[in-house]
């Protein structure tokens, strides 16, 4: 009834930002004075998606494109695609399930991640 699981909407990660080195790779003289982080938003290269036990599945035929999933996502995972659907970026989605619970059209449900 809910359709097949479609994971093809995992968005590719934008390639413009390089992964900063892990903290354990820094030499002392490579640090900026005061350990200032000079680039904004460097955490976007850190994927929190692997924390997830469940992932959201969107049924586009039910979706009313209201953006509730997007505005209530604590992980900024939802992004609007060119057709106006809000799609979860599974690189970041931690699987909290807020989107599924809050969706006014019941268009999202959570599915269990497969054991790897």
């Amino acid at each position: 009834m809910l359709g097949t699981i479609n994971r093809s909407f995992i968005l590719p990660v934008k390639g413009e930002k390089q992964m900063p080195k892990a903290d354990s790779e820094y030499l002392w003289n490579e640090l900026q004075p005061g350990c200032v982080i000079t680039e904004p938003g460097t955490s976007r290269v850190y994927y929190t998606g692997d924390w997830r036990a469940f992932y959201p599945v969107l049924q586009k035929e039910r979706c009313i494109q209201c953006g509730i999933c997007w505005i209530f996502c604590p992980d900024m995972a939802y992004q609007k695609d060119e057709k106006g659907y809000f799609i979860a970026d599974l690189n970041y989605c931690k699987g909290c399930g807020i989107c599924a619970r809050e969706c006014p059209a019941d268009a999202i449900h959570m599915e269990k991640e497969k054991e790897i």
Partner: protein
Amino acid sequence: MRNINAYVVKTLSSREYIAPGHRACAGCGEVLAMRQVQKALGRNVIVASATGCMEIVSSPFPFSSWEVPWIHVAFENAAAVAGGIEAALKVLQRKGKIEGKKIFVAAMAGDGGTADIGLQALSGALERGHNFLFICYDNEAYMNTGVQRSSSTPFGASTMTSPVGSAQIGQLTWKKNMMAIAAAHGIPYLATASPSYPMDLSEKVAKAAKTEGPAYVHVLSVCPSGWGIPSDATVKFGRLAVETGFFPLYEIEEGKYRITVDVEELLPLEMYLKPQGRFRHLKPELIEQISRRVRAEWRELNRKAEEQKEIEERE
């Protein structure tokens, strides 16, 4: 009430100022609140953060989730640091050392960094009249250190340092009224807000930022792990807090009270308390006792707002 925000939320900015990849727990209501607050503040802001959950999850070197300039110094001094930033912008613009465009200054802290250890610095900054916005992300306990009680923990809540035992029912004191304390400083704008009501929150934060002088916004930040609720229930419990009168959404503008999300008939408080792990032990008579006080406070708030309406009508 569930669909109240449907369709309109799309009018909110699509720009994000908190980057994904932060380390907040799944379903964190505090990071959700912070995301919505920063959305409302936009690009031209400098943020001073207290030590706490939001500081930790957004700044493990070298991963910063901040798309706007941000500084963390210590636990109790976010308001003082923000005061310094504000003073610097003021004098540097006056002296022509930097260009004169409007830059908002925001301080942020949890309930501990606001109502407990940060209260003195906050009071000082409010009293001195710095042109800044202080945001309290209230998750009602010291969650970052593992759920210990704060003065903002509600009566009856079980935490690691206000535990339930044979001789104790959990937190024995009533939640500190930070809005009243902040309001007593005579500052021009104060509001409560909840990320479960993004439009209301955005309007208030934008208004607070534009206020000349100090503004205070107290945001209820649901903490699934600390409160003992499922991670998908964050937004729901934020809503229930409002609908039961436990956390009313209102603002105080130049001393005038206004309830921004009206609740015609309060839902039974039990609906909010009972499903939460931290209140699970509460017996019906205790819930009734809490409910009486919540309703009395709700009536008092309504009375203040009504009084305001009457005055305005008379004028």
